[in-house]
């Protein structure tokens, strides 16, 4: 069902854990399946993401996308992190099965939520970042007969 990359990130997830006194923390839930992801950022004064950790209660795809997303944002600027879309994460994982596309949104939204938290705490505005919803859903229509 899953690509080798997905299985690798699932079996050996990178950056699992917490950051004490993180610069930003975001937790989002997926309305579609009830799964939850939390992301922690340690961001320095130059707005560079020095460290990132995550925790996920979710399926294989959720775990793997979380792991991959943290790798993609680590060492990046806040602005660059914002560009890490669910599509980019999926591509980096060699794709996901169609029913699992929504899982990748969890990571994208969690990044946004953590960045928002960081921006709020520091009273700054990040260009292009909107207040994230706590529950994400999506309009993907499944084939039904």
């Amino acid at each position: 069902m899953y690509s080798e990359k997905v299985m690798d990130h699932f079996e050996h997830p990178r950056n699992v854990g917490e950051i004490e006194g993180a610069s930003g923390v975001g937790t989002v839930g997926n309305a579609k399946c009830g799964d939850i992801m939390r992301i922690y950022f340690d961001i320095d004064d130059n707005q560079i993401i020095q460290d990132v950790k995550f925790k996920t209660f979710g399926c294989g795809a959720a775990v793997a996308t979380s792991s991959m997303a943290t790798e993609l944002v680590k060492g990046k600027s806040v602005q660059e992190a914002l560009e890490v879309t669910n599509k980019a994460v999926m591509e980096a994982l060699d794709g996901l099965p169609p029913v699992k596309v929504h899982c990748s949104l969890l990571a994208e939204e969690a990044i946004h939520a953590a960045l928002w938290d960081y921006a709020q705490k520091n009273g700054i505005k990040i260009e292009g970042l909107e207040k994230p919803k706590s529950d994400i859903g999506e309009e993907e229509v499944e084939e039904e007969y």
Partner: protein
Amino acid sequence: MEKIIYLDHAATTPARPEVVEAMMPYFTEKFWNPSSVYSPAAEAKKAVNEVRDRIAGSLGTQSQDIYFTAGGSEADNWAIKETAEAYASKGKHIITSKIEHHAVLHTCQYLERNGYEVTYLDVDENGYIKLDQLKAAIRPDTILITVMFANNEIGTIQPVKEIGAIAKEHGVLFHTDAVQAYGQVPINVDEMNIDMLSASGHKLNGPKGIGFMYIRKGLKLRSFIHGGAQERKRRAGTENVTGIVGLGKAVEIAFETMEERTAKEQELRDYAVRRILAEIPYCRLNGGRDKRLPNNINISFQFIEGESLLIMLDMAGICASSGSACTSGSLDPSHVLLAIGLPHEIAHGSLRMTLGEETTKEDMDFVVEKLKEIVDKLRKMSPLYEDFVKKH
């Protein structure tokens, strides 16, 4: 590949070698159409009817009440849709439970779209329906009660005899989906007042694509699949002779070995459950305690999600499931676990392991050890567990 421990016998079972052996001659030599008039074909017909006799015997009824189908789903659809049609003049109300298999639930929903009314009985925290609620639900226009014999996810065995008695007393027909129960627990359709019963071959080490329905003599039920005059004009289609012969062998062995086999499974089941509950914190056993399928384990592990658990078990060579196989791929948590009152996120983190006769104590010890590791690993990455630990 390393050894595989298969703990998903409720999804499907391997056909026994004896079953395959019994089928073999009917593929290539005795391939006859049982309805043909020339004499060799009589052998195929005889083989089919011997299986019919055997199944009838296993249920305490006559051969003429057994009709072969392509499986459990077809039998469920047939029983429910054709009862609805045949008895529509009496009424259009059907009673079922909230924890039925989708073959029953989706068929009931189909009937609802077509002018029927369906009452979905609640179940208690162990999955038993409440007989009082059943009695109260019966109306003058109730034509059918369809309640499964044993649940495929949590193993709960319903008080079928009591349900049958209530149905009989009120003059309502009683169908039971016995796909999980047949061959695992003794069933007598007369003593239990069962009017229709569905079963499927591949759940009892028989072949896939074959099942049967018991229909009590005298019921007005007509065909669901129309066409040729097979199965006493009630189920059209060239008889699946090989499938039927395989089913017959599987039934023979399942009933011969039932007592010993299920006693062993039950012991292993209880042993594994005891170890898991004792050695892994924050988990609960789902399903019936005393009246439960001998091979069914269903446990919820708090703070972790089912699919991740299954994949990690798979990596360790362990095949298990979190709901019924035919809904895997669906994102909703099991309707059965929600019906017994589990919150959404706990229902999500549950594991079904269904044992088979080849399962050993060593297998279960290995599984418990792996489970401990995996649950620990998954909890360490669970935000829910983090919150829980911080709060306590």
